[in-house]
């Protein structure tokens, strides 16, 4: 009885389902110029490759009206109403958003009535009530089976090897697993054997990550490692977003357009902002993967929910405590400086920082300075340049730069920094993860600020000492009052280094 009552409450109401019904019929109506055209198998395969596994609005389908109506009449596209309405809630079909504050209505000039639209996924193009989401309903595209597709010739370390085997097993079994590897452990390489295995079975693979910087960093590396496979990167600013390759590297936002497309879903940096905050992104990645698919999560700093799952043994995992070069993570040094906020508001560098500049071990290392806010990064640039000039660490002011989320030239500056044309880079948490610089010292100014949580601080310290020939960089956290996050971060790093030691002894015993 209770079941029946529940069902009754959640039944789609007729009144509300009307406009979508009408829209569907309107779209099904034959246009006057269309003719009955039978698709050849070749044509249908082409379309299948382009549209299979996606959920698209009409304007995202680049076909002419007559062509599209033909396909609709052949039922090669299935229309879905864009909103699911029950008595108590309305839900956007694309991003699963049901927050009333993120659903609004607007007077649609096309239909002369007021429609609902979703504000949550509006950056991907507005989904309104009068539009329908189309799903491909034709033949399934057969992705080629590629044997020995991996063209990467490097060698995995024993620790990486162990993780790679587990990843392979998870992909073969189509199960879930977490790879918890410290920053600089070589997470990307761990994936290669698994991807090779998946490709040999004709699977479609997605590597998703919340950060577009990570996508841009991963894309050339994956492309290098799998030279004969189609690889495509998808992120917001990219112009051409077809999404037709066998290996897709995408930001999690882009996955909102996919629907049961991938056999293997790899989520890199699963704990990064905004993935853990925005529920629609987790929904999107889940939907983009097929029902039976392997899901691999990669992170250096799992958050509470993942850790809990590990503790409860609900999520198989593999922990790699050592970096690929075998050296421990550089332990951060906490430096208290109680004139810090005063100096920063005066756009000056803290004295402790200047003192540290003189005591540095190796002055050839580049400087990566993290600050809590974008404004501070911009304000401190001049002062930093002046100080470094005075200390004769740089020859020209142009060797100091800032990079933050709203900076158009960010990619370029990061590239310059990697090529050592820039000596000192001021940045925000945007560069906390996914980027590799060979030899840097890391400084965090006002490390007790709210934006630096434990995960961020651990990731930031992971930027130092990533190269084989300079495995230990210095990490300095300048603060004016320890926070829990600060203490926890240092503790976490120490613990990981300890585990690395025991890991080593175990290995040598074997």
């Amino acid at each position: 009885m209770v079941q029946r009552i529940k069902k009754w409450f959640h039944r789609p109401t007729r009144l509300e389902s009307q406009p979508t019904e009408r829209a569907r019929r309107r779209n099904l109506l034959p246009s006057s110029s269309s003719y009955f055209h039978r698709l050849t198998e070749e044509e249908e395969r082409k379309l299948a490759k382009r549209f299979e596994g996606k959920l698209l609005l009409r304007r995202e389908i680049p076909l002419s009206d007559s062509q599209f109506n033909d396909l609709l009449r052949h039922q090669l596209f299935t229309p879905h109403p864009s909103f699911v309405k029950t008595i108590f809630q309305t839900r956007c079909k694309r991003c699963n958003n049901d927050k009333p504050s993120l659903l609004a209505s607007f007077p649609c000039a096309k239909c002369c009535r007021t429609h609902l639209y979703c504000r949550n996924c509006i950056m991907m193009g507005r989904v309104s009530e009068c539009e329908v989401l189309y799903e491909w309903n034709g033949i399934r595209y057969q992705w080629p089976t590629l044997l020995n597709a991996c063209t990467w010739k490097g060698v995995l370390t024993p620790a990486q090897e162990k993780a790679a085997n587990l990843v392979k097993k998870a992909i073969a079994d189509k199960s879930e697993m977490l790879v918890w590897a410290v920053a600089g452990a070589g997470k990307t390489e761990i994936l290669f054997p698994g991807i090779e295995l998946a490709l040999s079975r004709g699977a479609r693979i997605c590597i998703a990550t919340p950060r577009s910087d990570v996508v841009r960093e991963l894309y050339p590396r994956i492309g290098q490692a799998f030279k004969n496979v189609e690889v495509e990167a998808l992120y917001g600013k990219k112009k051409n977003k077809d999404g037709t390759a066998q290996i897709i590297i995408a930001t999690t936002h882009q996955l909102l357009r996919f629907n049961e497309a991938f056999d293997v879903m790899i989520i890199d940096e699963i704990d990064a902002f905004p993935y853990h905050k925005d529920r629609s992104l987790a929904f999107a990645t889940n939907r983009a993967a097929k029902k039976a698919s392997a899901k691999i999560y990669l992170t250096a700093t799992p958050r509470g929910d993942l850790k809990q799952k590990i503790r409860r043994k609900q999520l198989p995992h593999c922990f790699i405590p050592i970096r690929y070069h075998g050296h421990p993570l550089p332990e951060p040094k906490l430096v208290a400086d109680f004139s810090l906020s005063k100096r920063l508001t005066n756009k000056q560098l803290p004295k402790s920082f200047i003192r540290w500049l003189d005591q540095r071990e190796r002055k050839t290392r580049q400087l990566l300075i993290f600050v809590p806010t974008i404004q501070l990064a911009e304000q401190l640039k001049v002062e930093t340049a002046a100080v470094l000039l005075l200390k004769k660490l740089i020859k020209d002011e142009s060797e100091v730069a800032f990079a933050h989320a709203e900076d158009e030239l960010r990619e370029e500056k990061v590239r310059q920094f990697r090529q050592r044309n820039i000596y000192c880079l001021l940045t925000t948490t945007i560069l906390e993860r996914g980027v590799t610089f060979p030899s840097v010292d890391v400084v965090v100014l006002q490390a007790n600020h709210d934006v630096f949580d434990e995960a961020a601080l651990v990731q930031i310290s992971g930027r130092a000492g990533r190269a084989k020939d300079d495995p230990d960089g210095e990490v300095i956290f300048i603060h004016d009052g320890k926070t829990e996050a600060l203490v926890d971060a240092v503790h976490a790093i120490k613990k990981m280094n300890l585990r690395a030691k025991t890991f080593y002894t175990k290995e040598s015993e074997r």
Partner: protein
Amino acid sequence: MNRCLWCDEAIVNQFDWLTFFTGGEHQLLCEACLSQLETIRQPVCKKCFKMSNSKRCTDCKRWERFFSGDDPLEKNVSSFRYNEFLQEMIAKWKYRGDYVLGSVFEREIKRAFKFHYHALLKEAVIVPIPLSKSRMDERGFNQSEAIAEMATDDRKKIVQLFERIDDEKQAKKTRAERIFAKNPFKLLKTTNKTVILVDDIYTTGTTLRHAARLLKASGCPAVYAYTLVRG
């Protein structure tokens, strides 16, 4: 709960005896977002509302020379200064089509109309700058019409007199290209009432003057303008 239209953070209203009895004002933006909106403050150019110390800004002098003293536009009133935050907001509002964001400006629009055009509005009609047909289909609504609707409660005061012919975005052109472009409007009806043109952004003032020139030529006594943002 009340949430900010821009950042979706919860808005905590202050609670005192006044809000207890009156219910308080319904806030659309949180404090942090609201503080990023810059309203135009004195001193401004008396004619186009650009923030400048002289009574006539250089822009307006240039226009006066261009029309040899016979500028079709009487006056422009604007509410906000163009900054990066507003640019993002307006982009999301009109290009992405996030209609509700427009209501953020409602109070300011109402205030500006009451302050500057209260006497005028008894006689005048409000004419929103139109979008071209294709762009209208794309966006689903016209932001100028939305502003006009917020400005007055009397729907009859809003009349559509124009049709837009060209399709290009003004925002993608240079100043010279804008000024010497062909008139993109066609007059559908003539009017003998004073007209207040409404648009979202005043950058060079070309769009408004194109429209004003057509109106003046067909016997409209005076053309004023309200734009949300002075670029």
